[in-house]
């Protein structure tokens, strides 16, 4: 039973992180932009959602506004980078740091806030599942993931999506087409962080509480998911990137939860997250990409 419950938790948490991963997939994989705004835009989405929902706004409207708030953050990072020439890492750090205060102000200087009104996981539909509401939660999460996955997939097939991919692959290409590549970067970052903020809103509703620190380490979770997912499906081009990162998120969350299930104190969580991510990066650089062989050969020649 314990194992089964752990599995159910992994699925739910993994799908929440999968939403973040799909956002980071746009910034990191499509745009080739290491965006640290994520650590701030995730709790921003959560605080916007909880403030509005507790204020009587329907959760669907609250989530759309959360997406908008996240998009603004992404655009700010993009503008700092594109229009003012601040490096990509620094732009993200600036926005992320500013958001720590913004989130506190929005939450009324509270670090924790409980949901007082009905939300995405506390409504007539979910409650109709009775004691099995966890299945309802999973159903809702799966639907959200699939809807957003399809939206992103379709977007990437449009002309705008093509140009976004071209900018990530080779900025010169965009310029040679007579377009300002900077605008596409801003657009991509806005989309990515809108997605992340939505994930934050979903996650906080799932945990039924707003946690000001919930964004800490979110970049690591998202990047790990993206890298695991894309590495696994590297040679299967028919598998869409979005599908791959969703699977990656489930695997990474699974690995984290299994380690925790062995009784490691929760205070070690971020350490485990970082170590696990480091292991994944090292594996990705050597075993998975075959880079190790080349290295050995070089040594042999030397």
């Amino acid at each position, binding site marked *: 039973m314990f194992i089964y419950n752990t599995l159910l938790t992994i699925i739910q948490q993994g799908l929440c992180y999968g939403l973040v991963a799909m956002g980071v997939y746009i910034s990191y994989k499509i745009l080739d932009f290491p965006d640290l705004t994520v650590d701030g835009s995730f709790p921003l989405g959560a605080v916007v959602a909880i403030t509005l929902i507790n204020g009587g706004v329907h959760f669907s409207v609250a989530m759309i506004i959360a997406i908008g708030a996240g998009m603004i953050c992404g655009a700010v990072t993009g503008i700092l980078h594109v229009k003012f020439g601040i490096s990509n890492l620094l732009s993200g750090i600036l926005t992320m740091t500013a958001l720590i205060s913004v989130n506190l102000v929005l939450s009324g200087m509270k670090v924790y806030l409980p949901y007082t009104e009905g939300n995405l996981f506390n409504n007539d539909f979910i409650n109709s599942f009775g004691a099995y509401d966890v299945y309802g939660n999973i159903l809702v999460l799966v639907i959200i993931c699939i809807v957003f996955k399809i939206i992103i997939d379709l977007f990437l097939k*449009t*002309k705008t999506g093509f140009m976004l*991919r071209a900018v990530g692959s080779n900025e010169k290409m965009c310029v040679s087409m007579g377009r300002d590549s900077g605008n596409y970067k801003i657009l991509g970052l806005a989309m990515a962080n809108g997605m992340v903020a939505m994930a934050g809103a979903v996650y906080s509703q799932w945990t039924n509480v707003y946690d000001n620190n919930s964004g800490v380490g979110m970049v690591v979770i998202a990047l790990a998911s993206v890298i695991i997912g894309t590495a696994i499906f590297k040679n299967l081009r028919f598998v869409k990137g979005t599908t791959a990162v969703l699977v990656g998120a489930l695997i990474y969350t699974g690995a984290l939860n299994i380690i925790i299930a062995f009784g490691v104190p929760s205070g070690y969580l971020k350490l485990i997250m970082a170590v696990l991510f480091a292991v994944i990066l090292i594996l990705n650089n050597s075993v998975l990409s075959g880079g190790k062989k080349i290295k050995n050969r070089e040594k042999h020649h030397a």
Partner: protein
Amino acid sequence: MLKLENLVKIFNKDTVDESVLFEDFNLFVPKGQFVSVVGSNGSGKTTMLNLISGTMGIEGGRILLDDTDITVQKEFVRARRIGRVYQNPSMSTASQMTISENMAIAVNKNKPFNLSQGLKKSQIAEFRDLVSTLDLGLENKMDTLVGSLSGGQRQALTLLMATMTPIDLLLLDEHTAALDPRTSEKIMELTKSIVERTKITTLMVTHNLRFAVDYGNRILMMDKGKAVLDKAGSDKNAVKVQDLLEIFNTISIECGN
């Protein structure tokens, strides 16, 4: 038609490293002319292309393209009328996208990149026909990522993509320099056929003197920001590789090399 008027280009202006490349450079290229530009390193060939395309700004003078002053236009704005092929085959294509997808972007140049479908099924057949004219077997690789093509294949594709939509000026920046001799030859033949067919005004920078002599209808030899040889039409046809080498040697002796 391209007109460079009294161009001034100074590198590291107002520093101890200040160096003046163009003091008062003038060039007039009539519509449809194919100019080969040669010259030693540092003579200003590539800088000239950079100034025309807007990669670099100028300190003085004017650049006119068909009577429009483009001097202060940003690079991406100029790119709407100027196509450029670089020495590095990876510069003008998206390596993470397929041949079809790259061509779909290129054919949409100067049209809105909106939320309509990026690559239509009907386009693929059209692109395949176009690519088959390259005779490189790319027509069977339409779904291959451009990043996995060879340098020559990629350069041929780049050239094709740059001329898929009507442009007023084509800049070729040592576009065969990274290729093996046989492939270079092929790319040059392709260049010739495209330029002859579309009659685009073309500036080709090259280090290959034979290409400069064999192709195009005007030859320009540059040294230290000045044109030391400028022959067009029948005068150009009389120019031999040997003549160019002699000028090169004279310049080198003057420099004390």
